[in-house]
């Protein structure tokens, strides 16, 4: 059995960690909470130069043709660094959607730009509050034009195009549509105030914007969206576990340097047990992430179960770890200058971005029922 990363992959991860420690310190994330830029362009440029946006794009489309095992270790490090960049939107969602369902023409046009950083993509799903279901999609596509309202879209203010979930008014099927965002007459965006301003969010109003369907091929188009979300869930889970481990390390380090009642607070069992439970949850989630990475990389039939398992356990681990990290820090953990809140904010963004814990719990059980 070789249920582990290769030496090269471990090396790549070390390089990524070093790069981000230097290029993405916590102060950069903190300042991104209140500047107006939709993302940190300099950091993004560095990430593009490292080749990360090109990682899983095949060489024929200008990418590096690496495996998902390389991409997940990068995702983990981006999560650890709480990087204020549109990586998840552009790489886990827009790039994945094109790889999964794009026409040859769409792939030829967009994948090289995604790879070399000249384009950023994103994904628009939500229409109002509540769990996504195809029945709740009112954005309509007809005669090459798309109209409707997407209520919360990550990183669209940074993106050149958006993979949009919409309903074909002829077939009534819900599918994926590629919409370029430079159509000033037909698209208006409203920036949103959010819990985590280090990543930009907006609502998008489409009013007869040009759009191209992503051909689903033989796949049922609703299934296609589930497939895309399953694949993205694995990558999101790796970001989550990176952040979760970072918060555990912060908590441990602080508990070793802070004294109360004459001794290190990390010597009290109340805190030791809390951190042991953080470690246990993170470890279970990490192991589930390993399995999901394997399933994604081999396109295994176990992917729906594995993705949901990784997603649920990573979401839970990061929520627990990020909130208890603040708790272990006490008062200073609730200050702007300490880094605890950066992870606490990002934890919620990651938790709801492609479906909440509750949504993925439901998917997990469905997937085990189908597998049985």
């Amino acid at each position, binding site marked *: 059995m070789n*249920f582990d990363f290769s030496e090269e992959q471990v090396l790549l991860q070390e390089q990524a960690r070093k790069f981000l420690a230097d290029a993405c310190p916590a102060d950069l994330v903190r300042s991104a909470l209140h500047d107006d830029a939709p993302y940190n362009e300099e950091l993004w440029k560095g990430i593009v130069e490292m080749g990360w946006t090109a990682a899983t794009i095949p060489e024929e489309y200008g990418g590096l043709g690496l495996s998902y095992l390389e991409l997940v270790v990068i995702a983990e490090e981006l999560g650890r660094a709480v990087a204020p960049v549109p990586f998840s939107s552009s790489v886990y969602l827009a790039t994945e959607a094109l790889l999964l369902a794009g026409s040859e023409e769409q792939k030829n046009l967009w994948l090289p730009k995604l790879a070399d950083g000249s384009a950023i993509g994103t994904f628009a799903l939500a229409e109002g509050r509540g769990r996504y279901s195809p029945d709740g999609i009112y954005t309509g596509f007809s005669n090459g034009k798309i109209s409707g309202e997407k209520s919360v879209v990550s990183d669209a203010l940074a993106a050149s195009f958006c993979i949009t979930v919409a309903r074909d008014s002829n077939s009534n099927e819900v599918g994926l549509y590629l919409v370029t965002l430079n159509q000033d007459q037909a698209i208006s965006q409203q920036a949103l105030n959010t819990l985590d301003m280090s990543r930009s969010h907006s609502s998008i109003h489409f009013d007869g914007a040009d759009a191209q369907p992503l051909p689903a091929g033989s796949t049922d188009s609703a299934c296609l969206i589930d497939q895309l979300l399953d694949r993205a869930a694995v990558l999101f889970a790796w970001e989550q576990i990176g952040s979760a481990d970072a918060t555990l390390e912060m908590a441990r380090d602080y508990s070793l340097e802070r004294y109360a009642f004459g001794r290190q607070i990390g010597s009290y069992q109340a805190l030791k047990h809390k951190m042991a439970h953080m*470690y246990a949850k993170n470890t279970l989630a990490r192991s589930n992430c390993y399995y999901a990475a394997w399933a994604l990389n081999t396109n295994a039939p176990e992917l729906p179960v594995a993705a949901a398992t990784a997603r*649920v356990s990573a979401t839970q681990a990061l929520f627990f770890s990020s909130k208890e990290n603040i708790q272990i820090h006490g008062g200073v953990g609730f200050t702007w200058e300490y880094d605890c809140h950066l992870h606490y904010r990002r934890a919620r963004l990651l938790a709801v971005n492609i479906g909440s814990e509750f949504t993925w719990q439901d998917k997990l*059980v469905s997937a*085990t029922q189908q597998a049985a």
Partner: protein
Amino acid sequence: MDFNDTPEEAAFRQKARNWLAENAIPESELEGDNLIHRHRPWLKRLYEGGWSCISWPKRYGGQGASPIQEVIWNQEQSHYPHLKTHRFSVGQKMVAPTLMEFLEDRPETLERLLPPIASGDETWVQLFSEPAGGSDLAALRTRAERDGDAWLVNGQKIWSSHAVEAKWGFIVTRTDPTVPKHKGLTCLYLDMENPGIEIRPIKQANGESEFNEVFFADVRIPDNQRVGQVGQGWEVAVTMLSHERLAMGGENFGVDYEALRKLAGEVCIDGRPAIENAQVRAKLADFYCVEAGLRATTNRAISALSKGKNPGSETSINNMVIGASTQEIAAFALDLMEQAGIVLDESTQESSFFQQAFLSIPSMRIAGGTDEIQANIVAESVLGLPREPRVDKNVPFNELPGGK
């Protein structure tokens, strides 16, 4: 990343599989309810075929197998659940490795003691816990006093599993009460037929009697049955406990996700299968995440062994997590049955297994180190957090409150 055997591993797996296919004893040929008597013929067959305790050196009855070979063997053997020989694990997985470490320079003693452990002819009982020494094991009071070339042992042990059937006992005693508690301990092994030993089964909360109290009145143990130096008992005991933590785990009484998923498909809420209920699904998903996480964590450790490396610290969470999770699942299963959840039908082993498990699981969270002790171990040895200050650390044992 893959789940494949290396060619050497695959060859070994095939060899193990073939041997098991030819030699496994069918369930119908096993006799009696006492698992030690029931499985003894199977252990004998394993031993004669060279498949018992395969990681031990050949001279002691093993085949010098590598850790990964042992994992493969366990995986293959697990396909025959009726042949699970866990009742022999005190001797095989805890005592034997400890003896091999501390009696390394006495091969003739090991040649006497180890092969009967492998063959199942002789079982062992661990005599560690005492009424005054549970989580704080080193507070134990059973005295061993020097008497010529022997020790005279007086005191009481408790929570000793399967003491009645055991041929040998492995005991940790206090040999010097005038030094701090960890420094005054010594380990011995003894014949359980010695005069002066009285075994009283404990009626447990689940109605069974797996554990015992063992009383010692002037029990004479020759000094050549000492394991480790006089005063080295704590180190020896901790070594054995670390083997115990490895040997534990994996036992879930059949309470798992699949069993719960089946049940949730059978029982109804508002006239529909319970599994359609959103709250039920959320709980099921959480249980699945823990179970899958433990499985994948084990696979990471096996992968390390396969590469000839030591597994990392990740498996240390097993004992901390598994008891509490299993208890939650069992309680939830009973809730799904509503009023019927209380009914204990003992007509077959399968009927009411959630109820039986519910009653037995509290011991999982205590035996071999409580959940809280396990959390301390993770916090200290994995996360590097400091120990709680100890008021008894540098005080002679006989000056401690309760130490006399």
